[in-house]
């Protein structure tokens, strides 16, 4: 306690923190657009009801000061922070929370709509209290509240939330306010003098530079124009060089909420890939240590199942492992009824590479080589993001690369990817693009979503991991490590499970 008090007393005030955002966000309201760039900038402007601690991704107070969950797991009562004002000076009340969770976010965002469907009603008994009543117990709900709260008073009389002019006014309650957005150049946020957490934020301004080229971004960091490089700002092979520069620090935490995993999707509806032995063979044929160490320059950890090492639900002991073993792969393919043909080829598959830059292209080349070595001829079908996405969601592929945020609760980030897709999935954006289907897994995922006893819940998800890791509906290539590079003078850059996506209220610029 004393330490934290003295920490506050000596907080370094002032200064401008220079960062990079790429690509340029489409909106600065994370309720309107929830892609990485929008959430990175937007959560400095907009507050959410709760934050999440790095340890156990435990909920921490933000706009909600405290909360109580009823014993039946149905009613969540949030006590809101008093004296919070919007950037336009209007008071923040429970109506804003009810509007955001009940109306605004579900209209714009598919995941929020799914969440809304679990809510029976939202009550606002007074200006400082919000009561959310669920239809069925849903333990994941408390970890779904890192969504932005938007000002209800800006949307009075509006019915078309998607096209509302207020969407581009960017009025939040967060520690920073938008000062200038020079399209294509930079976004400058300045300190919100009326922020509810008195004395914070410490910084005067935060500037997000828009630099489209990875080389130019590395140079901007080297020349001291920007203070922080986040995941994807520079290619992995540049990171160690930049980390060795004087006065530069590197850290790998801050991904406890998102929990990114690398995927090689296998279309389980492709006849050969519907065969478990073929999927097992493919997993054996891929040297995932090579992918981690050589392609991703060591920024990744081995993984053998659907859940990240960062999750409390991870149970590696139940997972089946398919270590790199090309001979075993060849044997499994023989057993599956795909002998080597006259030309050395067993069968051909199409691989749709992830068009996200250099490393993924290298990985695609490697996959072609590795599978070719066991007699599976892989044809690369290169396309841009739009084409890649369309092929994935319409099952118009055999193998495809991806990386996915699996989130701290399996009901949020795992379930949708393995649950049976009803009927023909073409034309939807359903998450189970593997087309994997197992009735037992479906039932377990449903149970897990509603089980309130944490121990029983863990057991359920352990069973899920056991089955899925054995059936390898896709190949989990690596538990991704996204390092953050920053000048050592930047303090408190990462303090929560949301890492640099959090609000920067306590970030300081030292000497």
């Amino acid at each position, binding site marked *: 306690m004393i330490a934290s008090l003295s920490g506050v007393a000596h907080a370094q005030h002032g200064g401008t923190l220079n960062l990079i955002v790429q690509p340029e966000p489409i*909106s600065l309201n994370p309720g309107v657009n929830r892609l990485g760039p929008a959430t990175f900038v937007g959560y400095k402007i907009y507050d959410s009801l709760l934050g999440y601690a790095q340890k156990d991704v435990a909920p921490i107070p933000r706009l909600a000061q405290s909360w109580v969950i009823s014993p039946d797991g149905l009613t969540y009562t949030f006590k809101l922070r008093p004296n919070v004002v919007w950037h336009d000076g209007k008071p923040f009340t429970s109506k804003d929370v009810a509007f955001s969770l009940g109306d605004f976010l579900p209209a714009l965002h598919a995941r929020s709509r799914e969440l809304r469907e679990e809510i029976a009603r939202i009550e606002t008994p007074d200006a400082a209290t919000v009561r959310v009543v669920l239809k069925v117990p849903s333990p994941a709900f408390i970890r779904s509240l890192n969504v932005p709260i938007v000002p209800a008073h800006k949307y009075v009389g509006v019915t078309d939330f998607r096209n509302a002019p207020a969407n581009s006014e960017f009025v939040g309650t967060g520690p920073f306010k938008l000062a200038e957005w020079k399209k294509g150049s930079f976004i400058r946020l300045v300190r919100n003098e009326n922020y509810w957490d008195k004395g914070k934020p410490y910084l005067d301004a935060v500037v997000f530079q828009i630099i489209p080229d990875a080389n130019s971004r590395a140079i901007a960091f080297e020349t001291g124009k920007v203070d922080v490089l986040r995941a994807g700002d520079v290619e992995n092979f540049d990171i160690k060089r930049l980390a060795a520069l004087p006065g530069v620090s590197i850290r790998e935490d801050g991904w406890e909420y998102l929990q990114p995993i690398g995927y090689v999707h296998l279309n389980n509806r492709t006849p050969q890939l519907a065969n478990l032995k073929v999927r097992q063979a493919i997993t054996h044929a891929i040297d995932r240590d090579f992918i981690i160490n050589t392609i991703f320059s060591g920024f990744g950890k081995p993984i053998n199942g659907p859940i990240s090492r960062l999750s409390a639900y991870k149970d590696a002991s139940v997972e089946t492992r398919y270590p790199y073993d090309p001979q075993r792969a060849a044997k499994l393919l023989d057993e599956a009824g795909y002998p080597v043909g006259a030309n050395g080829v067993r069968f051909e598959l199409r691989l749709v590479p992830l068009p996200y830059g250099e490393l993924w292209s290298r990985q695609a080349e490697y996959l072609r080589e590795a599978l070719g070595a066991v007699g599976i001829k892989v044809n690369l079908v290169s396309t841009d993001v*739009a084409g890649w996405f369309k092929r994935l969601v319409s099952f118009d592929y055999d193998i495809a690369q991806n990386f996915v945020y699996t989130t701290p609760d399996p009901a949020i980030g795992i379930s949708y990817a393995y649950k049976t897709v009803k009927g023909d999935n073409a034309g939807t954006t359903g998450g189970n693009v593997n087309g994997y289907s197992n009735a037992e897994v479906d039932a377990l995922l449903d149970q897990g979503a509603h089980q309130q006893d944490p121990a029983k819940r863990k057991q359920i998800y352990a069973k899920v991991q056991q089955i899925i890791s054995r059936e390898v509906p896709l190949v989990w290539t690596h538990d991704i490590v996204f390092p953050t590079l920053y000048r050592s003078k930047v303090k408190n850059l990462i303090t929560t499970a949301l890492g640099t996506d959090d609000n920067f209220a306590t970030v300081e610029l030292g000497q």
Partner: protein
Amino acid sequence: MNALAAALARLGKAALTLLAVVILSFVLIRLAPGDPALLLAGDSGAGDAAFVEEIRRDLGLDRGLDVQLISYLTSVARLDFGVSYREKRPVAEMVLERVPATLLLTASALVFAIVAGIGLGACAARRPGSLLDGAITVVSVTFFAMPMFWVGLMFIIVFAVQLGWLPSYGMVDATSGQQGRGSALVDVLRHMVLPVLTLGLYYMSVLARVSRTALLQVAGADFIRTAKAKGLSPRLIWRHHLFRNALAPIITVVALQAAQLVGGSVLVETVFAWPGIGRFAFEALMTRDYNVLLAVFILTSFGVIVVNLLADTAYHLIDPRIDQAAAT
């Protein structure tokens, strides 16, 4: 009268070209794989078919292609370029935000290329085979052969990283707006140097080569020998006979290169984080923001058509024989 009719005919052709560009682009964009409604649904955390359909309806993409095309053409005729699918803002407004940066970059590069290119070409042509001619050839071949993005990166490494003289990215500093007009102007000029040189040096090389050849060809013509025999001063011959007659091929190349400048500016804008239209169009393409893309296509086609009209007009001004040839 004849000249007016010819000018009108040229304008008519230009208008037809523009219409063809609009229709072709409209159809071609939609033939590319990828669906904006799906992408937008994906951006918002995926969803079911109903959610995608809702977005498609919202964008007006649920209508037939012919209906969409007619509705688009009538809007464009009223100078309404629609709304961006992603940003939900009027496309015209978004494009106009970006045009000044690209115009500044490409126009400066073009002026630099014309002045330096023709200047170097003339220097080389004056004493063909001399040391200066050789040096100019080496310089122009070098900048012509080196990939533009690489030249840009080398400039950044030398002038921004090693020497620290010039900024490596952007058009303005995030704080320059607060420091008064004068310093803001200096700030933009400092940011311009490297991208303008990167883009301009390539076209300078092309023009230097073309002008040298054109000038040498004309220099060997009979009428130049006649002019010399008449005892005209070299300066007069150069200005009135040689240069004027060599201009036609140079103008052709300038007009052609002006069109390619837009392509080059995409690269340069990317390397130098220049907030222009090239990079903007690339991002719109990646996200299938049809309205934005079409507006950029129309605008750049319009620009190219205008440059070609100007070149046409310039031919007629420098060489009246072209008019006569067209009339016969």
